[in-house]
């Protein structure tokens, strides 16, 4: 179960798909209807990577990884227009990492990372204050996941 930080602050050894992570499409709330213009820059950056992948490291992201990142970005943008990534960066062994940082009211730092590897696999990692809470594989289809648990 993807739970709030206060309820889950230790590494989940099972690291498997869990009920809350399966399809329960998150719904954009009123506070999320404003579209942050940074989303446009993120999509442009992915398009640029698509067109010019060389120069993005010794093992640059391939088209599969970039396409997957773009599909996830499009869906996240649709559902969370106010919450663009804080960073998009090549994975050192080939792929794309898309990150969102959240500063919680109590000062804790929550961080989500979606990693799209060149081998067509993808995973979601959640951190709390630098500690990994979960590493969970994700599918090609963002609609299959509870995106509120992944990104919000």
């Amino acid at each position: 179960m993807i739970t709030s930080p206060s309820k889950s602050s230790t590494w989940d050894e099972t690291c498997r798909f869990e009920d809350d992570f399966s399809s329960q499409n998150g719904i954009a709330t009123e506070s999320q209807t404003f579209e942050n213009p940074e989303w446009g820059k993120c999509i442009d950056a992915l398009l640029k990577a698509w067109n010019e992948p060389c120069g993005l490291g010794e093992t640059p992201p391939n088209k599969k990884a970039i396409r997957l990142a773009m599909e996830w970005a499009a869906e996240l943008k649709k559902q969370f227009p106010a919450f663009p990534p804080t960073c998009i960066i090549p994975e050192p062994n080939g792929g794309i990492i898309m990150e969102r940082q959240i500063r919680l009211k109590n000062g804790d730092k929550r961080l989500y990372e979606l990693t799209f590897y060149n081998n067509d696999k993808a995973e979601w990692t959640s951190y709390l204050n630098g500690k990994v809470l979960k590493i969970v594989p994700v599918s090609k289809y963002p609609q299959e996941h509870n995106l509120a648990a992944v990104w919000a």
Partner: protein
Amino acid sequence: MTDASQTLYRQIKNGGNPIYYEPNRTPILHSAAFLPSSQDKDGLSVIQGGFRTKIWAAYRPEQPEERFRIALLRFDFLKTIALDAGFPDLQLKTTPDQLDDYFGIPFAHGVLPEINRISYDNCLVSKKQIKEFGKKVVESLNSQDIEGPFLKPDEGVHSHRPD
């Protein structure tokens, strides 16, 4: 015997730069700069600062036109971070690179064997530990700890050994 108080340099590759970066984001680097790549099967590459100058530490003969920056890291501090991430005794293993082959002993290039790509790819617990290690390293860095990019070094002008 490895000197735990020594400074290590980690090359920050051009490809390690983000393709998108939210302007107010901290820390200054993403932890991907400290994740092992396919080149790091035997461990994360570092240069021992006692045996190579910064300008040479930021240079790779196999990529002569690439300009790298370097992150300055205290080995004893890395050991503390590694301990917190689940590596009780982070090692530094000397493994000569092309410049070591050219300049000879003492060799400057080394690896942190625990931070290797094979474990990262094949063991979920290791992946979790290595990701945490990378996050803690970047959280510990400030702008003074990142230097470069440097000019292409010239053997006639730039010494490869620190004074």
